[in-house]
């Protein structure tokens, strides 16, 4: 057998270096904090796995994790089907294609904190367009600073408005790559619209949908800015998602140890669920 080219790994070194500096080393400092206790003055005491144990038994953590999963599940359940439906109803050619694409892309171009601020003003009960309309024109009591349900509805609608476009654009890219012959053959085979969707469009969209779902899962599971600007985690703790809770512990209470342990668990969950998604969705391809 021929010996593999030995110098090849030299070319990988720069990447290794970069990854080390922007991911591995910072993460190791977090690992370092997570096993120690500090009261400031750069004094550290060994804590072992204590923080992890406490966190995993903490009701506060369970509640935040539950809210986080609920939020992600709801927005995925809305954004993925909605995105596919919008992509299916977009024209395949002609003047309206660029118009649709640009309109779709607009929400994604707005910075996170601006989105939060926009929706904050939009929903103000007395002067916000939506808030005023709900309370004074339609007569429905709506105040997301008071009512947890209103707060949840608002963060979900905000995320759907902000990110459904991503699913739309990816699905659309998958759809336009289907050659006309598939639709023609389906017509000749007498396939119904549902059969065309089920056996032609969905399989051809599968790869981009896998990516869309993964991206939407990771982004929504790690969401911070929009919700923080909009509700600040309130009313009460009702919209305190994992990331918001984490920042409260790390910067509010300055509990570096518990916050570091939480970061690691948070990261592990995101990684695991992403891996699970990906494995399940690509499993059939190798059969």
């Amino acid at each position, binding site marked *: 057998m021929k010996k593999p080219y030995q110098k090849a790994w030299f070319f990988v070194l720069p990447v290794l270096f970069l990854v080390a500096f922007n991911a591995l080393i910072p993460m190791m400092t977090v690992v370092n904090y997570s096993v120690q206790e500090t009261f400031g003055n750069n004094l550290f005491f060994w804590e072992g796995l204590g923080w992890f144990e406490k966190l995993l038994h903490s009701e506060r953590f369970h509640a935040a994790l539950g809210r986080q999963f609920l939020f992600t599940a709801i927005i995925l359940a809305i954004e993925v089907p909605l995105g596919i439906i919008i992509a299916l109803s977009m024209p395949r050619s002609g003047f309206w294609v660029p118009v649709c694409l640009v309109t779709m892309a607009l929400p994604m171009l707005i910075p996170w904190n601006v989105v939060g601020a926009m929706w904050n003003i939009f929903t103000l009960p007395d002067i916000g367009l939506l808030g005023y309309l709900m309370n004074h024109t339609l007569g429905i009591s709506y105040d997301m600073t008071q009512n947890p349900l209103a707060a949840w509805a608002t963060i979900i609608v905000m995320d759907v408005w902000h990110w459904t476009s991503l699913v739309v654009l990816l699905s659309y890219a998958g759809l336009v790559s289907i*050659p006309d*012959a*598939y639709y*023609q*053959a389906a*017509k*000749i*085979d*007498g*396939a*119904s619209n549902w*059969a065309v969707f089920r*056996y*032609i469009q969905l*399989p*051809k969209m599968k790869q981009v949908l896998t990516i869309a779902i993964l991206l939407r899962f990771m982004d929504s599971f790690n969401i911070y800015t929009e919700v923080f600007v909009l509700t600040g985690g309130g009313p009460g703790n009702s919209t305190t998602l994992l990331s918001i809770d984490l920042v409260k512990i790390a910067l509010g209470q300055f509990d570096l140890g518990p916050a570091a342990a939480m970061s690691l668990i948070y990261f592990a969950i995101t990684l695991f669920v992403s891996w699970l998604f990906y494995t399940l969705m690509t499993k*059939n391809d190798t*059969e």
Partner: protein
Amino acid sequence: MAQITLSKLRHSYYPNPKTPDDYALKEIDLDWEDGGAYALLGPSGCGKSTLLNIISGLVDPSQGQILFDGEDVTGLPPDQRNIAQVFQFPVIYDTMTVFNNLAFPLRNRGMDENAVKQRVQEIAHMLELDGMLHSRAAGLSPDNKQKISMGRGLVRKNVNVVMFDEPLTVIDPHLKWKLRSKLKELHQKVRATMIYVTHDQTEALTFADQVVVMNDGEIVQIGTPNELFERPAHTFVGHFIGSPGMNVLPCEVGQGMAFFHGHSINLEGVIDSTGAGKTEIGIRPEYVSLSDQGLEAKIRKVSDVGRHNVVDAMIGDTLVKAVVNGAVPAQGETVHLSFDPAKTRLYRDGWIATQTQGAAS
């Protein structure tokens, strides 16, 4: 199975066509006999795919009618015409097994599952797909995928017509030949009318009993491969079929004779006296030979194409190609060319303008 009649068919992709150039198809009148093997041959953009899509119902013609066994089907959607179409790139339903792919058109029509099973097995056997019925269609090679898309058409009983739209484009060269003979064999078995669209003359001539040559939205000639080769009705056919194509030489006509560079040329028969227009002599390189006398020509190039040599000779500033077996002249040499009179024809404005010897006598 059905006889297919196209009557005064015209099609334009513009909403309001004005000039003839706006039409992708210019008035087609054509009968496809029941059970015939036809090839539709022409260069890219000549309208052959449009014609095919009109027969299958994927495109509605601007004018004219399509009849299956005398019955007007112009307004019927594709799934009600009972036709099969095989596309350039294999269309298969990726997520299904081969069996489910073949069963798909039957199940869509609500056929009983036992009957589906029996029919699919029959067709799979015919296409030699038996062994792979339960594997996923996505993993198969392109030639097997094409067989599946063919099978999805044939699986329905009494298919009116099976149409192939350049089906061998993505097939490896060594499999092309195999699949082509499979098609031919299939035609003999099912006796369905088959129309095979291609721009490759070899494919057309080997598959079809009758070849329909199209150019620029018009049918130029219909005939057996031999007829197309021996007596092209149009210079386009002469040029398009044959390798190298027919020599088309500008000439003058006077007193019932054709003159080329001042020499009178013997033709196959009497010149049709009607009409004026650009006149040309057409002769295939196969019927041009080197001889002691005849037109003087200078050799420009000799290409060895294996079985024979193709000689490019210049008569004045006109290029004449000749197919030569055996000894060939050297480049730059001066030779004499003679044309076989029985194969030499006059074309006026592209169309043949001599009568055959039989007709003239």
